[in-house]
């Protein structure tokens, strides 16, 4: 096995990371957009609270976040019974890994979308309103297309974060090869023992490759959006 050949376990980690990052971003985007909209456009009781809550995963040590996830979504967690009824298991599953990654990426995605929302010229929304577009349609046809570069930026940062995340992931879903071992947790495991520098380097190369790819893709997309 030469240095650049990936072992099956590494390939599994690679595929899983890609899956986890993609799923977590895809599922967070709509929710993040909604939350960003609330935070940017509405004044309501609990605004500050929601804002703080969204930022929490950024502030807390990832392990704490993972622990809180366990408390909430573990088998014996607060929502454990509900999840059980739904036949959904999160702890120690890849779905749980995606959840953990999504929670960790969430504040970054919300911030990006919120900034984009705040930069949208309300005059354009007014114009759409006078043309008879309901708030929902204004959002769909005017606001959303205008914030797409911001959404994209959020998605990429979120994707990168989801790829790099392991603290909450490993705590919530542990590190089961083929099931919940992402590149990041594989790297972590490798780092625990001496003399694994080559393997670590290979894994890091992989994850950098993935996220640089996502970055470049997003830049190209963004440029295409803006060019018109």
């Amino acid at each position, binding site marked *: 096995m030469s240095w650049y050949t990936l072992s099956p376990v590494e390939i599994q980690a690679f595929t899983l990371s890609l899956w986890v990052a993609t799923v977590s971003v895809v599922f967070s985007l709509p929710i993040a957009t909604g939350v960003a909209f609330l935070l940017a456009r509405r004044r309501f009781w609990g605004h500050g609270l929601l804002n703080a809550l969204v930022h929490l995963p950024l502030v807390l040590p990832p392990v704490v976040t993972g622990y809180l996830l366990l408390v909430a979504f573990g088998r014996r967690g607060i929502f454990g019974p509900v999840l059980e009824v739904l036949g959904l298991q999160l702890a120690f599953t890849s779905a749980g890994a995606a959840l953990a990654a999504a929670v960790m990426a969430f504040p970054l995605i919300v911030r990006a979308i919120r900034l984009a929302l705040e930069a949208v010229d309300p*005059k*354009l929304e*007014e*114009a*759409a*309103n*006078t*043309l*008879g*577009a*309901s*708030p929902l*349609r*204004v959002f769909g*046809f*005017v606001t959303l*297309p*205008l914030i797409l570069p911001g959404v994209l930026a959020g998605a990429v940062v979120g994707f990168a974060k989801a790829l790099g995340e392991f603290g909450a992931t490993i705590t919530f879903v542990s590190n089961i090869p083929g099931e919940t071992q992402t590149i990041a947790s594989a790297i972590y495991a490798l780092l625990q023992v001496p003399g694994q520098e080559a393997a670590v380097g290979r894994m890091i190369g992989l994850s950098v490759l993935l996220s640089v790819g996502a970055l470049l893709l997003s830049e190209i997309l963004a440029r295409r*959006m803006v060019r*018109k």
Partner: protein
Amino acid sequence: MTVELNIQLQRDEFFLDAYLSAPAGVTVIFGPSGSGKTTLLRAVAGLERVDSGYISIDKANIVGQAPYKRAVGYVFQEPRLFPHITVLKNLKFAQKMGRMGGGQDVDEVIDLLELRPLLSRYSAALSGGEAQRVALGRALLSAPKCLCLDEPLSALDHALKQRILPYLERLRNQTKIPILYVTHDASEMARLADHIVLMQAGRSVLSGSATKVLADPAAVPFLGVRAAGTVISGCIMPPDPITGLAIMSFAGGQLILPELSQPAGREVRIRIAAQDIILATEMPKGLSALNIFHGVITDMHQGQGPGVMVQFRVGQTLFLARITQYSAGKMGLALGKTVFAIVKASAFDPAGIGT
């Protein structure tokens, strides 16, 4: 359909207190910069919250109604095109959002406003006038129950205005929706206005039918002397077989017009500015001017400057002429005296001739 409103609102130091009743047709809102014209239109469209009062379209109070439910089409002072979609998609969007469906025909609007070469462009690649035309088209396509046009043509050149104005006239005549129209251009106002509302420092100081307001010497200080004049309505006759010139018959005689592409039998309105009329005490001869009327002075109104507004009656029509005090004295003009009024056929701006 009618728009009626009586609203009050305060924005920092600015206080708007406007009353207005706009039936089908064009109601021109005229007033100096900062007098509240835009604020008034925004209130109608629901973009500005009013402190008190009512706004009704067709007797239904719309105060408190969400802007998008009001079906008030709006052309803003700046174009406000959606920058992320092409011109064509801007238009299609408006049509799709228009809830009564129907509305104007996209192709017709595109041709009229000469938008065809622009359809695949984005707003960043449009000139000022082009963008304003697209904005106008967009508003027309949204099938509004009432149109608010805030200086829609002020970025357009004269020739283009002349091509677009007849369309607005047709729109006014066909759709029977009230159009609130802000403009600074007196000839645009004279051509389009059925009604005029004069704004001054947030208040609607004078309003009424265009004919009345434009010929009202009391309105002159608000309109400016150059905007004062007479609007006469009449009917196009078959062109003169000898001269080939168009003729309009009105309650007081016949008026020879410059080239006019209106068919015989069509009702038209013409504005004759007070300063475009020359008065004479004897019948002038050998003149290039083709329209010479014989009238009786009914009113004389002295302005602050060296001018006098002379109102005289020709048949049943009242005309307004502005001459110098010196001339009035020299000619011995007085109430009841007979005068000859000279009007040049080529002085009529075709843009000032409306239906």
